[in-house]
């Protein structure tokens, strides 16, 4: 089973749930979580329609056609109007062997561009390395643009439409979080260059315009996402620490029998919340576990936040019924009050006497 490299999407998801040790170690070890979820008997529901794939690739190819003329025109128009228009752009060849080779090649190209300022440079699918919880992740942005003033911009090409200048906020948010990871990785590269070039915090989001396939772009400020991601990534428990806590000989190979595999997965604690369903391949497995344990977080993080120290469904209900819990605990008192009011409202409703005419 080949190792699965961490991509920016996975990192953004990881940063959204930094307390999940299970995800941290599986991603850190390059485990193919989709295969693992299948072997555990809770296959993930992720998949991409070939229609979306074809359309996305066709769009990206169109944006980057002719040496990126259109892409650079958009970068000039949306981000850097003061500089000279990109007439002659450099598009260095970034092909190399393996991710390490490509990362080195990218860094070299960026250094060359920094050494010869005054021109536009387009890096098509560069490769960047980012240290995540003690192990390197290789990231591949759609493109990076070097401006004539030597600053760098991350380009994100998406196939959802920019309709009358506005796009689906959820999708833009996801793109911004993803781009923030690239910005962080670029900043690490920039720190090694002398003098350090500026990595712009406004990324270029390129999308189809309205209902056509014509590219249009918008500058998206990712300072907030960058700060959040940086903080979360720093908070990630170092993978060695998690690994040290594992029993000797733990193995996550999807070829193992389901029972043994379940035990291995259970050895690392997870922090399941419903948001995982749209971000993690293992979510259905974790959800089953979370439900079986009666964890209230399976109903959503805000639910958990409301209930104070009570973490399981039965604890909460017992406290609400007055069978358990300390009545002086404000959370318990509020619960009993809520339960009484709810019973009263439902009781009066069933007697069809409205208490509040």
């Amino acid at each position, binding site marked *: 089973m080949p190792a699965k490299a961490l991509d920016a999407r996975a990192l953004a998801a990881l940063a959204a749930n930094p307390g999940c040790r299970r995800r941290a170690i599986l991603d850190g070890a390059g485990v193919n979580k989709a295969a693992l979820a299948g072997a555990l008997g809770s*296959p993930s*529901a992720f*998949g*991409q*329609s*070939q*229609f*979306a*794939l*074809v*359309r*996305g690739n*066709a769009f990206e190819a*169109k944006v980057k056609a002719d040496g990126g003329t259109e892409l650079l025109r958009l970068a000039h128009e949306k981000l850097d109007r003061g500089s000279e228009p990109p007439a002659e752009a450099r598009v260095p060849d970034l092909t190399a062997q393996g991710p390490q080779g490509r990362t080195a090649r990218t860094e070299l190209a960026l250094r060359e561009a920094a050494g010869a300022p005054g021109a536009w440079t387009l890096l098509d699918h560069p490769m960047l390395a980012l240290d995540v919880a003690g192990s390197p992740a290789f990231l591949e942005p759609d493109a990076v643009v070097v401006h004539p003033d030597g600053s760098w911009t991350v380009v994100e090409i998406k*196939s*959802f*439409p920019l*309709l*009358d200048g506005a796009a689906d906020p959820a999708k833009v948010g996801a793109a911004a979080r993803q781009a923030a990871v690239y910005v962080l990785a670029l900043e690490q590269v920039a720190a090694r260059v002398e003098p350090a070039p500026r990595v712009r915090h406004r990324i270029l989001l390129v999308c*189809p315009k*309205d*209902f*056509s*396939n*014509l590219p249009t772009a918008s500058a998206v400020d990712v300072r907030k996402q960058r700060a959040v991601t940086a903080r979360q990534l720093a908070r990630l428990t170092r993978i060695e620490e998690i690994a040290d806590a594992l029993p000797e000989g733990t193995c996550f190979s999807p070829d193992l029998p389901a029972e043994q595999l379940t035990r291995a997965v259970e050895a690392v604690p997870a922090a399941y919340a*419903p*948001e995982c*369903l*749209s971000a993690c391949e293992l979510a*259905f497995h974790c959800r089953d576990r979370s*439900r079986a344990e009666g964890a*209230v977080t*399976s*109903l*959503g993080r*805000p*639910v958990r936040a*409301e*209930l104070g120290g009570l973490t399981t*469904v*039965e604890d*909460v*209900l017992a406290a*609400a019924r007055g069978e358990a819990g300390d009545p002086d605990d404000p959370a318990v008192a*509020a*619960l009993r*009050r*809520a*339960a009484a*009011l*709810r019973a*009263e*409202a*439902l009781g*009066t*409703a069933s007697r069809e006497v*409205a*208490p*509040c*005419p």
Partner: protein
Amino acid sequence: MSLIATLARLEAVSTGRAQPAATVRHRHLSTRPLVFVPLITAGEAGAPLGALVGTDRDAPRLLAVPQPRDRDLRFAFLAELADVVLPYIDGFADVVEPAERSETDPETGKRVKVEVELCADAPQLIVPSRAGIDLVRLLGRSTRFRRTAEQDPETPFPAPPRVPLLGRWLTHFGERARVPGSSLLLAMTDVLGRHWATGQSSLEDQHLGALLAWIAPPEGRSGAEAAQEAELARDAAGQLLCPPAGPATDPAFDNRLLAPAIERYDRARTALAAAEDGLEADDRLGALTAAEREIRALVASRTRPTWDAVWQGLDLLRELPEGSRVEERWTRDRWSFTGHRDRVASGEPPQPRRDDAVTAANKLATREREQSRLEAQEALDDPLVMAARRLSGEAFAGEVVDVVMAYSESKRPSPRPLVTVRTDDGPHLGERARAYRSLGGKPQTVEFVGYEDGPEGGLLVLRVLDRMGRGKEPEPGSVPEKGDRLCFTLFEHEPRGGAKLPDPEETPWTHGGPPGEEPAPEPADQVTEEDIL
């Protein structure tokens, strides 16, 4: 989410069945709604793949686009959709009742009552999920600027007649759906989620099949089991047993069933175009029809379960009695419908891509006002909603233990009786805070005077301020009596809107200034070669 709603969800987990989150129905349901179950093509903006649409649960109209990237087929779909939707809408446009509306007289500047028409009922569109509402809006946007050959003989790729009109109506439905409490366009998952609390998160409630499984689990099974099956169970061929409510389709369906079918259709079409004689063309036309029929069958197989689910949801909702203030909100929907009918009839151009400053500010103000109205009305209609407000200290209920007659200190003393109420609730009452109770459907105002024996005692003294008539003695029944059980709210029953916004001609320069001359009708979207990939 209030603690009461959380508790309901937890009870649902432990009982394996959804629990009531409302005791009455808070949304209007038409006796003859138009149900619309659309599907779209992944990766393209507003490229419909097909739909089931209609008002008869046993006979939906199936629409399908065998090649979603073909502009002509897309137009054919929209024309067919217009053939269903527009006659349905027109059916409500002609039945009117007289009504009054206050308008500003252009000469005197005074507010005067004007006699106008109000449609006696309005159409209601029901889609399975929130994403369906977005699609209605998107279809509206993609069609309302299109030009027909009649409007503009020069236009390349003219749209079929009535398609732009369909776009204007869909846009109106989509915009109205943003107003809290409106019912012109409803998403079934939202309405069901408003009335039942399931044992899963609100995120998972977006799946119509899972939501229904919690509310009405099959005999002998728990909601959790049935919901999980609805979400995940696949047949031997890897297809979901309960297809997603759309409009997006399952990638496995796209890749394994739809893509090969579309490819066969494309091949059959190319073959037909290359046919050299009539006999050959006949054969190949047969193949093309068969390929098209196959795609139609695929679309039907993915939309029919959702169609049935939407109607099942309607059945469940109809079992709940309608809240008493729902009718009032539906009247607002009827005004909205009548207004748009008049705008279409008077030949106004389609809704602009971007609202001007005054229109946008008005829309926002309306939504804010309707949100607070909805919150107040739902609480007044439904003791369960009121319970949540009582828990949060925004309302209190209790028994009247004492009434002392008192009068205001003025030349003509008016009754200001003092009422003592015993309550277990903990309302957040400041000095002289106002509270309201419903008296014959109108709010009566009381003022908080103080606690009889300290804040812990639960005895509140309130002074009644209005709705007692003009005389010295209060009108019978207008003052609470000892032993009455009453419920007071700290929020107003009929929230007032903010200050009036200026007319568009008076737009301040900070907001772009007054619009110039009569704005030119907005051009249609430029048609590019890229539209057909």
